[in-house]
């Protein structure tokens, strides 16, 4: 099984020796070196409490790393930017805004002309299959539709990098499966702006299905203990015996004795 393949290309997002400590608390993780390359989905997995969600927030600079540097396409990031958009685990939409207004929010303070803002917002809603629902409020939508709105809102800013913090965990399996396919389609078929995605998930099936590379974090403070490249052709099928080999490998690496593959 190939492990930890080094790419010669320039990473889209590069984390160099980053560490984070919550105020008046212990260090959450340290010496994290993680790169995400073009056309690549990187998954971060690890036991609960190892700071995976915190790591995503540090990558987005929503939390300032206590050590280390983050680079986006070679430029160091020092503050939050719409170019690294975070999709939350708990689906966050503004209840007083329609789907279209929710998406427009990410473009509110750009210098784009109003027509362009609306055009782009509508295009993103179309991309996630919600063109007809643009005037609906979140409470008139299902959880899956709301998460699509959140994804459209993140994409409207045309970010090169998308950070996904367990984005399907609150959805039923059918909706989650359809959204996973959509994320794949977005990353690999709409290359004009979105180049890479980093996914945090506890669902190992989801990880094997989506990721090109998996970073396993563990320990206190957490570090990247293992990196695994998933060489499976797309579309991936759970009936494929290789799919299960990767799954078993992940279970082994994570030390999950009771996890049923």
């Amino acid at each position: 099984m190939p492990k930890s393949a080094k790419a010669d290309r320039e990473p889209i997002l590069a984390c160099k020796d980053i560490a984070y400590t919550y105020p008046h608390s212990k260090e959450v993780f340290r010496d994290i070196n993680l790169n995400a390359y073009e056309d690549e989905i990187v998954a971060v997995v690890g036991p609960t409490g190892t700071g995976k969600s915190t790591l995503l927030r540090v990558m987005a600079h929503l939390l300032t790393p206590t050590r280390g540097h983050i680079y986006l396409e070679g430029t160091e990031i020092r503050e939050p930017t719409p170019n690294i958009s975070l999709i939350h685990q708990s689906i966050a939409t503004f209840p007083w805004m329609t789907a279209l207004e929710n998406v427009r929010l990410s473009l509110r303070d750009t210098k784009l002309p109003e027509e362009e803002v609306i055009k782009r917002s509508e295009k993103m809603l179309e991309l996630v299959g919600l063109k007809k629902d643009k005037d609906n409020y979140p409470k008139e939508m299902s959880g899956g539709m709301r998460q699509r709105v959140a994804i459209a809102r993140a994409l409207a800013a045309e970010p090169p990098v998308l950070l996904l913090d367990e984005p399907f965990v609150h959805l039923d399996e059918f909706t989650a499966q359809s959204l996973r396919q959509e994320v794949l389609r977005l990353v690999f078929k709409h290359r004009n702006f979105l180049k890479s995605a980093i996914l945090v998930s506890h669902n190992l099936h989801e990880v094997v299905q989506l990721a090109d590379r998996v970073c396993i974090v563990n320990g206190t403070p957490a570090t990247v203990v293992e990196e695994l490249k998933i060489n499976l052709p797309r579309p991936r099928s759970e009936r494929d015996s290789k799919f299960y080999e990767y799954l078993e490998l992940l279970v082994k690496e994570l030390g999950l004795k009771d996890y049923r593959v």
Partner: protein
Amino acid sequence: MDIYPIALATAVTIARVLVLIALSIVTGWVLGYIAIKSRWFENVWITLVNVFESIPVIAFFPLVLVVFINGLGGTWGVELASDFLVFDAVVWNVWIGIYQAFKTVPGDLLEVAENYDFGFLRRMADLYIPHSIPRITTNMFSSFADAMFYITVSEVFSVGITTYKSFGIGSVLVAFLRAGNLTGVYYSLLCIAVGVVCVTLVFSRTNRWAVSKFGTNTDIVIRRRTGPLQAYIQREEQYLVRELKTVRHMIHKVRAPPSVPLSNPYERQHLLTKQEVKYIEFAGTIVAIAVLTYVLYSVYLIAASVSAQQWARFLSITPFLVYAMAVDYLRVAAITILSFILAVTVGYYLARHHRISVPVTTAVQIIAAFPAPAYFPLIFIATLPFMENLLPLTYAEVYIFMLGFLSCFYYVFFDFWTGVQGIPAEFWELMRNYRLSTYTRIRYIILPGTLPYLITGLSSTINSAWAGIAIGEFWPNIYGTQTLQTGIGMMRFISLNMANGDVADAAWVSLIFGLVIVVYSIFFTRNLMDLARKKFVVEEGIYAA
């Protein structure tokens, strides 16, 4: 100077307020229960509470005079008049809190009570009353503050040449102020400060205990106590927990949205047999009709007792009164706008700078806890020479504005602050992630996200602004022989006519004001609150199945 009588007066006042809060609680439990069982009673009661809550205590002076001073008379008449005015200051918060608590008892708990076939007393003792306690203890702060705010006008008031007094720190303080006795004033303020701090501390601990013990969604740990009373309380608590242990998902929040739907058919249909429901609904309807009939009959009696000549006079002064009311509304609007701007800007700043939020909110709490009319005369007398020079024509207006502002700004501040703290972390992250400007954040996220809280806060702010200007527009002998008064204002008209013994004119303007408040409450506050509840519930922004 002997401080003992001052301390005693403070203790008497605080005891009076606490006893009347207790009376509000007991009556609130009874009325609240009837309200959730009878839609008729609920509609009448809640409408009346909403209206009376908005009317400043001073507007009740004519009623107090007719019923207690002229009707009952003597020392008891004066004491009951004071008690009525204090009761009027404390009761609305408590009643609304109990009503909201009774309306939001989780359906799961109601089902458990139904399963165990709880009777009326058990339902009250084990379900409704415990569920209402966190709200009561929370509302006791504002009830106590409201009562203390009016203490200088409810313990001593003049009608014509007669001054009516009941013993308490309010009447003692007024006597010192009129005599220009600064030492007495300082001692009084010191005693009030000690009293307010002690009561606030007790309320604070009680509230924390109540929320931890009776709240249905809280992370606060219950502190175990020892001693026979505590052991009894714990036994009762364990009993309740045992009875209700099958309940897994208690979703009610201790601080629920500021308003609740007027009807929840679940409560009316469950728990009781059809016959019991019919009986309570019938009883509630009878009570509601009786209250309405009494109110209408009283209005008729009063109207019939007024001579045609008097009616002509009322009508002739009405345009002037409407103008005076408009001037007062401008004052209230100015105070409210400043309070709102301050609340939003400071509240937003504090939300982004957690380190200073604790000292600032504590400072505002201290200011809020101390009744403005108690210390305002000192500000007045200290700054009067300067203000008279600076603004010879409008200095009174500045003082009225200042008193109104000190009386109310913290309501909208604390409500907004509570609302801002309720904005989910995800929303803050999105604001930062998309690098939204401060204007965009406030305009599109913060204000809509806090709208239900803002409406509640603004409503309380407006009510208290009225209270401030009601005292400030005509304050005879605010210090020594000094009188603070404005040239025009509805509240001045009421106070001045009461002081001159012209109760009829004062009652007429109180009635007009009451009608305006009813219209305002029905067509503005309620509609706005309904809209906020329907569309601007920030908790609905997070979907976590």
